[in-house]
C-alpha cells in the first residue's frame, strides 16, 4: 500500500468519532439524493408514460400550419399588386383523400393509424342536456391505436361495429345521467340532426374530465350526424417506438401536407416544466452533499492542525509537498467513497421502502404505488457528486498541509 494511503487511514482511524460524523453526513446526503431523485424522476417517467399511453402518438388533423394562399395572391406572386378585402375561398373541412393518406401512413414501418371524425354533439336524457365530444371511429382500427379498449367497464368498442346505433360513453357521464348499458339517449348535432342512440359500452380512464365528456360512435353514423359524408378530420397514429414520434410526424407532414402533431410537440410546455423541476431538484439534493462536505472539510482541517508536527517530520524526512498533500486528499477520498457506497445501500433501502407506499391521489380512481425510478444515471450522479465534493472539501486543508514549512514547526517544538 502506498505510504500516503497508509498514513491517511491511520489519521482517520485515530479520530474515529469525527470521521464517523463526516461519514454519516455523506451517507445521509447520498441516500437523500437517491430517494428524492428516484421519486421525482419516477413520477416524471410515470407521467410521461401515461401521457404517451393515453394520447395519440401523432395526430394528423385537417389543418395546415400556414394558411393556404388565396388564388388572387397566387396569380400575382410578387407583383406590386396589393390585394385587400378578398373573400377567401371556403374550404370544406376534413382531410381530403384520407384513404390514400391513411394507406401511406400505415405503410411506414412500425406505424399504425386510424381515421376519426371528431365533432361535438348535445346528449339529452330525461330532460337533461350535456355537450359532449363525439368521435366517429372504426372500432377494429381504433383498437390498434388507442388503449381505450382496455378501459372498458362494460361492453366494448367492437359492439359499435355490429350496432350502428350504439354509443360508448365514459363512467363519469354514465354516473351523472344515471345511464346504464342499454339506456337510450338522444344525440343532437350542431347541424340539427337528431338520433336516438343506445349505450353499448362504458369506459373509465381515471381522467375525470375525459370520462365525463368523451363519447364514441361508429364512423358512418357520426358522418351522418355531423352531415360530413365520407369525411374524417383526424388520423390517429400510434408508433411501436413513441420516441420516434417527432421524426415520423415531420415526415408525415412533409408528405401529406396536413398538420401532424407528435405527443412530444404537444407536450413541449410540460416537458420543459419537468426539466426545470429536475434542475431544481438536483440543485437541492446536491446542496445537501455540499453541506455534508463541510463535515469532511472540518474533520480534515482538524487533522491537519493536530498533525502539523507529524507533517513537519514527514517533510524533514524527505516527503515532498505533493506527498503530504496526497495524504489528506486520500482522507477526503476515503470518506467520500465509503460514504457514497454506504449511501447507495441506504438510498436503495429507502427506495425499496418508498415503493411499498400506496396512495390515492385526487382525480384518480385507483390506488397507485409511488413511482420509484431505478435508473443507473442517478446512482452515478450521486456517487460522482459525493466523491468530488469530498475531494474538494479535502483540497484546501491538503494544500495547507503541503505548505507546512518544517523549520517553523521544529523551531517552535524545541
Amino acid at each position, binding site marked *: 500500500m502506498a505510504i500516503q494511503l*497508509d498514513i491517511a487511514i491511520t489519521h482517520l482511524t485515530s479520530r474515529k468519532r469525527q470521521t464517523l460524523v463526516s461519514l454519516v453526513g455523506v451517507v445521509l446526503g447520498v441516500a437523500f439524493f437517491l430517494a428524492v431523485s428516484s421519486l421525482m424522476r419516477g413520477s416524471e417517467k410515470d407521467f410521461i408514460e401515461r401521457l404517451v399511453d393515453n394520447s395519440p402518438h401523432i395526430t394528423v388533423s385537417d389543418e395546415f400550419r400556414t394558411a393556404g394562399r388565396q388564388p388572387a395572391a397566387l396569380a400575382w406572386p410578387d407583383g406590386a399588386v396589393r390585394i385587400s378585402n378578398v373573400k377567401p375561398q371556403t374550404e370544406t373541412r376534413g382531410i381530403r383523400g384520407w384513404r390514400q393518406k391513411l394507406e401511406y401512413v400505415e405503410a411506414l414501418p412500425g406505424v399504425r393509424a386510424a381515421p376519426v371524425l371528431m365533432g361535438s354533439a348535445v346528449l339529452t336524457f330525461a330532460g337533461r342536456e350535456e355537450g359532449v365530444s363525439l368521435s366517429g371511429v372504426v372500432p377494429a382500427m381504433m383498437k390498434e391505436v388507442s388503449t381505450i379498449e382496455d378501459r372498458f367497464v362494460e361492453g366494448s368498442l367492437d359492439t359499435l361495429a355490429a350496432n350502428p346505433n350504439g354509443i360508448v360513453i365514459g363512467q363519469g357521464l354514465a354516473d351523472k345521467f344515471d345511464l346504464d348499458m342499454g339506456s337510450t339517449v338522444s344525440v343532437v348535432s350542431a347541424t340539427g340532426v337528431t338520433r336516438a342512440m343506445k349505450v353499448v359500452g362504458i369506459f373509465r380512464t381515471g381522467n375525470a374530465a375525459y370520462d365525463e365528456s368523451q363519447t364514441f360512435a361508429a364512423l358512418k353514423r357520426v358522418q351522418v350526424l355531423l352531415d360530413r359524408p365520407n369525411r374524417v378530420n383526424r388520423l390517429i397514429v400510434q408508433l411501436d417506438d413513441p420516441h420516434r414520434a417527432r421524426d415520423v410526424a415531420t415526415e408525415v407532414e412533409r408528405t401529406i401536407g396536413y398538420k401532424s402533431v407528435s405527443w412530444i410537440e404537444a407536450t413541449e410546455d410540460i416537458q420543459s416544466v419537468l426539466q426545470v423541476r429536475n434542475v431544481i431538484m438536483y440543485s437541492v439534493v446536491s446542496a445537501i452533499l455540499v453541506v455534508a462536505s463541510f463535515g469532511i472539510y472540518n474533520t480534515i482541517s482538524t487533522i491537519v492542525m493536530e498533525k502539523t508536527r507529524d507533517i513537519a*517530520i514527514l517533510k*524533514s*524526512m*524527505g516527503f515532498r*509537498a505533493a506527498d503530504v498533500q496526497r495524504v489528506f486528499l486520500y482522507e477526503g477520498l476515503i470518506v467520500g467513497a465509503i460514504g457514497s457506497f454506504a449511501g447507495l445501500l441506504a438510498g436503495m433501502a429507502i427506495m425499496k421502502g418508498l415503493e411499498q407506499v400506496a396512495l390515492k391521489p385526487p382525480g384518480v380512481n385507483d390506488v397507485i404505488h409511488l413511482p420509484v425510478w431505478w435508473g443507473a444515471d442517478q446512482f452515478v450522479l450521486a456517487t460522482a457528486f459525493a466523491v468530488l465534493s469530498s475531494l474538494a472539501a479535502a483540497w484546501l486543508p491538503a494544500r495547507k498541509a503541503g505548505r507546512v514549512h*518544517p*523549520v517553523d514547526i521544529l523551531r517552535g*517544538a524545541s
Partner: protein
Amino acid sequence: MTGEERAGAPTRTTPLAADAPVVLRAENVVRRLEGEVPVTLVDGVTLDIRRGEFVAIMGPSGSGKSSLLYLLGLLDVPSEGRVWLDGEDTSRYGEDELANRRLEKLGFVFQFHFLLAEFTVLDNVRLPMRRLGRRAPDEAEARARELLGHFGVAEQAHKRPSQLSGGQRQRVAIARALANDPLVVLADEPTGNLDSVSSANVRRILHDLTHEFGKTVVAVTHDGAFAAAADRRIGIVDGRIDESWRP
C-alpha cells in the same frame, strides 16, 4: 585539526583520513529573516565537513546553532551563500529536489523524538524506506529490525512510541534517521531531553556511527561530555563561527 583537539575522544578504530572527501560544505552562508525588524540568524558561516567526521556545534542559547543545522540539512534555504552536499551545489535545487536529497542522503535526530504516535516503532523506522521505495517490503522490514536490534530496541518493534522510555524513543529515532543509509546524520541537541544514562547511551551510539560505520555526524549540543567525544567542535556566537568560544 590537531591531535590535542581530539584528545578527549574515545579510541577510534578507523582514524579520520586527512584527505577524506568533503561531504557537506557551507560557503559564506547567511540566513536572514526579512520583516519589520530583520533578524540575522546565521551570519556568514563557511565550513567543511569531511566524510566520517563527528562534529559538535556548540554555543550560547539563541546563537543560531539550530538555524545553521537546518541550512546544512537542506530544511531551510540560505539568504546568501551556498550549501554543498556530496559535491553538489544545492542552491539550484527546488523544494522537491531538496526533499529528495534529504530522503536519500540525510537523516535527522531532534531533541524530541518526533516519532509518529499512531505507528508502531517498526513502522516508524520503515517509513523513509517506503517513501524512497528502493527496497522490497520484506527487505525494508528486515533492515528496520536489524537497526532496532543494533540499538537494543528490537523487543519494542511492535509497541507504540508512547510505550517507550525517552532513551528508547531517541534510539528508535536514530534507527529511523539511518533507514535509508544516509551520508550525513544531523542531530539537534539529541541528548537535551534525556537523563544522564540515556544521554551516555545516545552519545556512544552517535560516536560509533562515525567510528564504526563511517557515517558523518553533525550534532548541535550543550552537553560537555558529548562535545568532548567529537572530532571537532565548532563554536557559534551571534550567528558566526567563533574560534575562541569555550563552554
